C-alpha cells in the first residue's frame, strides 16, 4: 500500500512540474516503446515458465503414468487435457507472439529505423494492457469451477461449443475470451509497427535500407491483420454457441462443425509465419553481425518472405485432410503446401550462403542463431511428410506431427528468442550477459531439445497419437521399447528446463553486474547501436541519425574497419 500512496503523490508531482517520473508512470503506465517492450518481454518470459512447467507435468505423466509427480501430485485425465491445451495456447499466443513480435518489435523498430518512439504511443500502451488482461483471464480459467479448458489448442467445435461435451462450463468461454483479447492486443500493436515503419524512418532510410528484422515484423503484422478476421468472427460465433445457445457449429440444429476448423486454420496457418518471420529477422541480424558479412541476397529474402506470406493463405486445409472436407480439395492444398518449401528454402539457403566467406565469431547469440538455421531446417523438411496428403492419412495427429511443429516452434520461440536476448541485451541494459554461462545454457538447451523430440518422431511414425494421457491403455503402444523412448524424452525435457536456470540467473545478475559496454559492443551497422546503451527516453537525444547506406555493409573492400554504420557520413561528404 505504501507504494500505491507514493505513486499517487508521484503522479501529482509529475503534472505540476517535471520531476523524475514516478515508478508507476515510468514502468507501469509508460508510453515509452522500450518500457512496453520490456513489459511484453517479462510477461512472455513468465508465461514461458508456466508453459514449460505444464510440459514438465504432462511429460512426467507420459513417462511414469499414474505416479505422483513432484511439484504437482497425481494427474487426472481432465487436468492432463487442460495442461496440454494450455501449454499449446500459452506457448503460441502468450510466449511466441509477445516476445518475438511485441517485445522485439516495440523495443527495436523505433531504434532500428532511427526515430524517438512509436507513432501511436498510447495505442501501444493500451495494447500491452489488453494483453496483460488476456493473460490474467487465461490464468484465471484454472481457478473456476470445472477447471481450465481441455479441448486442445485448436478448440474444435462442437466439443468446445457445449459444456455438456467439454465439462468446462467456465473454462471454455474464458479460454476463448482470453485468446480474443490477446488478438485485439496484437492488432493494436500491429497497426503501430506498420505505421511507424512506413512513416517515421530516419532521413535517408530508403525501402531497401530497412533492416531485415524490421521488414519481417512488418510483414508478420500485415499477415496477422489479414488472417485474424475470420478467427475473431469464429470466436464470437463460438462464444455465442457456448453462452447464448446459438448453433453455428451444431449439426443437429443446422450448423456445421467443420466451419470452425476452416475459420481457425485460415488464421492458424498464417499465424505460423507470423511468428516465423520475426525469428528469421533476428537470425538475419545476428548472423550478419557475427559473420561480418553482408546479408546474402537481401531483396530475394525480402520478396521470398512476402511470397511466403501470400502463399500461407492458401494452405490452411492441409490441417484438415482427413477431417471430412471434400477429398478432391486435397489436390490443391497438397500442391500449395509443398510449394511453400520454395520460399522457405530460399530464405534458409540465403542464411547459409551468408556464412560463405565470413569470419564467424561464436558468441552465444551467434550460436543460437546458427542453431535456429540448423534446427528449423529439420522442422521445415519434416513438414513435407505431412503436407503430402497420402502420408498425412497415416501421420495426422500422431507424435510425428507434434515433433514436426516443435522443431519449427522451438527454434522460433525459444532459440531465436535467446539469440535476440543475448544479442540486444547490451542495448537493453547497457551491460553484456556472461558468455561462459551463456554457452552452458546454449548446449544444455540444444541437447535437451533434440533429446525430447527425436524419439517423438519415431514414436509418431510407430502410430502413437497425440493427447492421450496414458499409453499403457493401448496394447500396441505399451511395449517397453516405446515406453523407454517416452522416458528418454521426459528426462531430456528436464535437462532442457534445468539448463534454463543458468540463463535466468545470468539474465538477472547481468542487469546489475554484467560487463559494462558502450554504444556498439558488437561493431554492428544498424541504427540501434548509435543510441546510448541503454537508450534514454527519446532514444537518440536531440539529433536523430541520418542514413547513408544499407544495414549490412560489413567487410567492405578498401576500408580499414570491417563495419560501416548506416549513419556514418560518406568520406566525400565528411571532408
Amino acid at each position, binding site marked *: 500500500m505504501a507504494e500505491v500512496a507514493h505513486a499517487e503523490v508521484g503522479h501529482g508531482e509529475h503534472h505540476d512540474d517535471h520531476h523524475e517520473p514516478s515508478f508507476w508512470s515510468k514502468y507501469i503506465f509508460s508510453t515509452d516503446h522500450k518500457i512496453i517492450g520490456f513489459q511484453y518481454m517479462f510477461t512472455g518470459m513468465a508465461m514461458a515458465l508456466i508453459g514449460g512447467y505444464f510440459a514438465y507435468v504432462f511429460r512426467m505423466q507420459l513417462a511414469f503414468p499414474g505416479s505422483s509427480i513432484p511439484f504437482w501430485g497425481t494427474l487426472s485425465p481432465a487436468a492432463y487435457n487442460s495442461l496440454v491445451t494450455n501449454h499449446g495456447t500459452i506457448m503460441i499466443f502468450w510466449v511466441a507472439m509477445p516476445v518475438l513480435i511485441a517485445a522485439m518489435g516495440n523495443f527495436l523498430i523505433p531504434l532500428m529505423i532511427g526515430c524517438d518512439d512509436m507513432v501511436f504511443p498510447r495505442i501501444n500502451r493500451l495494447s500491452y494492457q489488453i494483453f496483460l488482461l488476456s493473460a490474467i483471464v487465461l490464468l484465471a480459467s484454472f481457478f473456476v469451477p470445472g477447471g481450465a479448458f481441455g479441448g486442445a489448442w485448436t478448440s474444435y467445435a462442437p466439443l468446445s461449443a457445449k459444456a455438456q461435451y467439454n465439462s468446462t462450463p467456465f473454462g471454455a468461454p474464458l479460454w476463448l475470451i482470453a485468446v480474443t483479447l490477446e488478438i485485439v492486443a496484437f492488432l493494436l500493436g500491429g497497426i503501430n509497427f506498420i505505421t511507424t515503419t512506413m512513416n517515421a524512418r530516419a532521413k535517408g532510410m530508403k525501402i531497401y535500407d530497412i533492416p531485415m528484422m524490421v521488414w519481417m515484423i512488418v510483414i508478420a503484422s500485415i499477415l496477422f491483420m489479414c488472417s485474424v478476421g475470420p478467427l475473431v468472427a469464429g470466436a464470437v460465433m463460438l462464444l455465442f454457441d457456448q453462452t447464448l445457445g446459438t448453433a453455428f457449429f451444431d449439426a443437429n440444429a443446422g450448423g456445421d462443425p467443420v466451419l470452425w476448423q476452416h475459420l481457425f486454420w485460415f488464421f492458424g496457418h498464417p499465424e505460423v509465419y507470423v511468428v516465423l518471420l520475426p525469428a528469421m529477422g533476428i537470425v538475419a541480424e545476428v548472423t550478419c553481425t557475427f559473420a561480418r558479412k*553482408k546479408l546474402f541476397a537481401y531483396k530475394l529474402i525480402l520478396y521470398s518472405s512476402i511470397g511466403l506470406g501470400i502463399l500461407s493463405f492458401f494452405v490452411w486445409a492441409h490441417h484438415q485432410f482427413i477431417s*471430412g472436407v471434400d477429398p478432391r480439395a486435397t489436390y490443391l492444398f497438397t500442391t500449395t503446401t509443398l510449394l511453400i518449401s520454395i520460399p522457405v528454402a530460399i530464405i534458409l539457403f540465403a542464411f547459409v550462403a*551468408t556464412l560463405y566467406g*565470413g*569470419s564467424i565469431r561464436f558468441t552465444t547469440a551467434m550460436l543460437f542463431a546458427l542453431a535456429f538455421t540448423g534446427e528449423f531446417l529439420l522442422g521445415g523438411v519434416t513438414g513435407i511428410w505431412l503436407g503430402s496428403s497420402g*502420408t498425412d492419412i497415416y501421420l495426422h495427429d500422431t507424435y510425428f506431427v507434434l515433433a514436426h511443429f516443435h522443431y519449427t516452434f522451438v527454434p522460433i520461440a525459444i532459440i531465436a528468442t535467446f539469440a535476440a536476448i543475448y544479442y540486444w541485451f547490451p542495448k537493453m541494459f547497457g551491460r553484456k550477459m556472461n558468455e561462459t554461462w551463456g554457452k552452458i545454457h546454449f548446449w544444455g538447451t540444444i541437447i535437451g531439445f533434440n533429446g525430447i523430440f527425436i524419439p517423438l518422431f519415431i514414436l509418431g511414425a510407430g502410430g502413437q497419437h497425440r493427447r492421450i494421457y496414458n499409453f499403457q491403455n493401448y496394447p500396441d503402444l505399451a511395449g517397453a521399447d516405446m515406453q523407454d523412448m517416452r522416458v528418454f524424452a521426459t528426462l531430456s525435457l528436464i535437462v532442457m528446463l534445468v539448463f534454463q536456470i543458468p540463463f535466468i540467473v545470468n539474465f538477472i545478475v547481468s542487469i546489475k553486474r554484467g560487463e559494462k559496454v558502450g554504444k556498439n559492443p558488437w561493431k554492428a551497422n544498424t541504427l540501434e547501436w548509435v543510441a546510448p546503451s541503454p537508450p534514454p527516453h527519446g532514444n537518440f537525444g536531440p539529433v536523430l541519425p541520418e542514413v547513408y547506406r544499407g544495414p549490412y555493409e560489413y567487410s567492405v573492400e578498401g576500408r580499414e574497419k570491417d563495419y560501416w554504420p548506416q549513419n556514418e557520413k560518406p568520406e566525400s561528404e565528411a571532408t
Partner: protein
Amino acid sequence: MFEFLDKFMPGILESLLPRASSYAIEIDVLFDVITILVGFWFLLVLGYFFYLIFRYRQRDGHKAEYISGETHKQKQAIEIPHYLILVCDVAIIIPTFLVWFNIKIDIPPPEEEVRIVAQQWAWTFYHAGEDKVLGTEDDIVSVNELHIKNNTQYSYHLESRDVMHSFSVPVFRLKQDAIPGRVISGHFKPILEGEWDIQCAEMCGVAHGIMGARIFIKSEAEHNAWLAANTPISEGAGILAAAKQNLSQEKKDQNNG
C-alpha cells in the same frame, strides 16, 4: 507399381508396425520416397552448413569477404537448388495424388460393410451379419471390438453422435475423422490376421485418452464362428422388448396390488 518400388525402399514404417491392409504398402512406399528425397536435401544442406561454420570460423589474418548476393552469378547459388527442389516437389506430389486417390476417393465395390458409430467415449460397430446388408435384423453390434474377415473388401460408414472423433487404425495406415451430422464412407481390405489397436485420434473430451478399441482380423471360418456365437440385433431387440414388457407388467401388477 508400389509393390515394385517397395523392393528398393528402406521400409521404415513397416519396421515399426506391420502392414495389415491392402493400401498400407502405398503409404509406406510414399513415406520412403519422401524420406529419400527430403533426407538427401536435409543432409546436403546441413553438411554444407557445418562445413561453412568450420571453414569460415574467425582466425588470425583472415578477413571476411564482401559478397552482396545480388549479382546474377551469385543468385544462381540459390536459384539452381531451388529449381531442383521444385523438381523434388513434383516427384512427391505425383505419387501423393495416386495414393490419395486409391485410398480416399476410389472406393471399390464392397464385399462386406460395417457401420462405425463414435460417441464420448466408445466405439460401436455394426457388423452386417450373414445377409451382408447393414440395417437389417441379423446385424451384430459390438462395443469397442471390430471383427472383420481377412482378404475381404470392406466399406465402412463412419458417424459421430456428439463431437468430432477420428477413427484411426495404425496397422491399416487408415484415419478418418467422424463428424456429427455426417456419414463418411471409406474402404479397407485387411490382408493380415491378428489383433491390433484402434485409437481415437481427435481430442474428444475428458476421456479421449481411453477411447480405444481393438480390431480382430480373422480367417473366414473363425469370423463365421464369431458371427454365429453372437446375438443378432433382431434377437437382441426381441429380448429387450420382452424384458420391457415384463417390467411394465410388474409395474402394473404392483399398481394393481
